[in-house]
Every structure is written in structure tokens, then in C-alpha cells.
């Protein structure tokens, strides 16, 4: 993946203030039902034009790569870039502050009224739909994923280990992750060597 080219940079470099960063993520945070990413992207790229689509994708790659919640990482990375630590704090607070309080409220209602039969019935219905949402999301993400070819066997192994064998995640990751990464690394090296030899052959022939 190449960095965003010069022509893809914004005509007028973005320079959001700390307050603007907070507001942007505040609105994105409370808009996002079941997934903030689309709202965050629209806010950052289309509405406020803080980044180009390429820059956003690039930063999102970083945020997925780093451990921890992706959208939280995004708020920090973006805030850091524009206004340093103050910007990062503003984005994080904007993103999580109000939703956290809302979740506390939901929790309070849940523990206070959750045992009532009518409420339980409603929750049953919501839970069934929610399970379907997560399942459909996992299919969509699987389809969009970079994983390809026979390395999907690692996905099958992970699925079997977690869903069928109920093994602890740490155990599964410690065995599968390095193996899968090593295979990926070897594939990349092989491809690089193949590319180099093709380039050498092309140069060699007149």
C-alpha cells in the first residue's frame, strides 16, 4: 500500500481545533448505533474534510493493526495528529464520554427492570435480532477481509478451537497467530523474490 500521493492531499490542509475535534467525535459517537465507523468516516472525510479517503484508510489500517478497540485507536491517532495529546484526549472523550454515561443509564434500567416478564420478552426479541446482526456483520467482514487462499485454514482452526473446543483465547492466539503470521511472512518474501527475479529477467533481455 503506497502512502497517499501529493495530489490526493487536501487543497487546504485541515487544522481542526481541540474543540472541533471533540465535537466531531461527540456527534459521531452518539450517532453510531452498533458501529461508529461509518459515521466517523463520514464526519472525518466527507463532512469536515479532515482527511482524504486515502489518508483515512491508511490511518484505519494503523488502528486495526494496533491492539485495542479500533475506533478508540482512531480517535487517538487522529487527535494526536492534529492537536497532539490534547487533541487525542478531546477525541477520546468526545467519542466515549456520553455513550459511556448512556450505557450506565441503560445498565441501571436493565438491572432495575430487567426481571419483569414483559421486559424480558422484549429483551428476548432484541437479543435474537442482535445475534443475527452480529452474524451478518461477521459474514460481511469475512467477505471483505484480506484473507485468501489456503491460509483460511487458520480461520477454520480458530473457529474450531473457540466455538467447538471452547479453548481460552490466549491459548488459541499464542499457537495460531505466530504460525499464521510466519506463513504470511514467508508468502510475502516469496512474492518479493519472484517480483525481483521477474524484474531482473526483464532488465536482462534487450
Amino acid at each position, binding site marked *: 500500500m503506497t502512502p497517499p500521493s501529493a495530489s490526493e492531499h487536501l487543497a487546504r490542509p485541515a487544522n481542526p481545533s481541540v474543540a472541533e475535534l471533540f465535537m466531531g467525535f461527540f456527534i459521531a*459517537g*452518539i450517532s453510531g*448505533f*452498533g458501529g*461508529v465507523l461509518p459515521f466517523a468516516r463520514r464526519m472525518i472525510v466527507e463532512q469536515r474534510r479532515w482527511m482524504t479517503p486515502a489518508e483515512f484508510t491508511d490511518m484505519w489500517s494503523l*488502528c*486495526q*493493526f494496533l*491492539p*485495542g*478497540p*479500533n*475506533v478508540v*485507536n482512531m480517535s*487517538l*491517532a487522529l487527535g494526536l495528529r492534529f492537536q497532539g495529546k490534547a487533541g487525542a484526549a478531546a477525541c477520546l472523550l468526545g467519542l*466515549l464520554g456520553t*455513550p459511556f454515561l*448512556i*450505557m450506565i443509564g441503560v445498565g*441501571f434500567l*436493565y438491572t432495575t427492570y430487567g426481571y419483569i416478564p414483559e421486559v424480558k420478552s*422484549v*429483551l*428476548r*426479541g*432484541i*437479543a*435474537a*435480532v*442482535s*445475534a*443475527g*446482526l*452480529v*452474524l*451478518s*456483520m*461477521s459474514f*460481511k*467482514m*469475512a467477505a471483505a*477481509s484480506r*484473507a485468501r487462499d489456503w*491460509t*483460511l485454514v*487458520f*480461520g477454520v*482452526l*480458530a*473457529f474450531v478451537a*473457540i*466455538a467447538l473446543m471452547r479453548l481460552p*483465547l490466549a491459548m488459541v492466539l499464542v499457537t495460531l*497467530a505466530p504460525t*499464521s*503470521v510466519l*506463513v*504470511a511472512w514467508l508468502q*510475502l518474501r516469496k512474492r518479493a523474490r519472484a517480483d525481483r527475479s521477474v524484474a531482473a529477467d526483464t532488465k536482462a533481455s534487450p
Partner: protein
Amino acid sequence: MPDVDVLRQLALDFLGLSMMAIGGVMSTLSEMHRIVVDHHHWMTSTEFAEVVALSQAAPGPNILVVTLVGWKVAGFAGALVATAAMCGPTSIITLMVAGAWQRFRDARWRIAIENGLAPVTIGLMIASALLLVRSADHSVAAYVASAITVVAMLATRINPLWLIAVGAVAGYAGLI
């Protein structure tokens, strides 16, 4: 005053979970369930499904499911601890490392990690999704509701909130 041991356990569990969250919240749900339901018996499987559902229906990032789990386990302190443990330490890592992105962005090891983790993430996500279905659905009608949701989400561009609303009404009406 909530049990300090519970809070400490909550903090450690979610700290560990945060470091293993390779594909977003969804990939961690299986492990969260294993810890909270199977291991500690802090809630039932059904309650776990309810908590996940509520966190989806509420506005905000999906990661805040941990807030609700923490609340259910140990009230406000639990919610705070779980959220801080899940988001805090990894945030510090991000702040330290994000600035150096250009340095390792194109490194083979970085791309290999992404490519290598991708299939594992898919396996984890699907495992989590099926676990959720098992936890939430206890009747044929419930399975049908989940199936309809999947079809609707894959085949249409309907806002998931509508589906949640229909699910709520159907549940209230005793259909699920």
C-alpha cells in the same frame, strides 16, 4: 461497596481481552462469554446475550458492551473498571506508537502480521456470532428471527435499528 476482588478480576480479565482484540469487539465476544459466564458465573448465557443486544441498540461504539458487562457484574465501579481496562492500556500503546506509523507501515513484518491475523480474525468473529445465536435463541421463532435479520442485513440496506425495533415488538407480543 462492590467486592474488590471482583473488581480486580474484572480489570485483569478485560486488560487481557483488550490485548487480544485483534478484530474489533466481535472477535472478543466468545472469550468474554467464556470468562464471564462459563468461568466466573457472573451472569447467565441469556443475560450475556441481553447485555450484548442492549449495547448494540444503544448509541455509541460497540466496545462499550464492556461497560454494560461491568455494570451487570459490579455496578458503576464495575462499569468503570471494565471500560478503563479495555480501553486504557491499549490507548497508551497507541499514543506511543501511532507517531511512528510511517516507519513500520511498509515493513514486511507489519504486513505479515495483518495478513496472518486476518483469517484468524474471521474464525473468531464467526465463532462469536454463533455463540451469540446459541445464547440468545431458545425457540424456533427466535432462530427464525435471527435468520431473517441476517437475510435482511445481507440483502437490503435497511437500518439495523428498524430490525431491533421489530424484534422488540415481536418479543413483547410473545412471538419470540
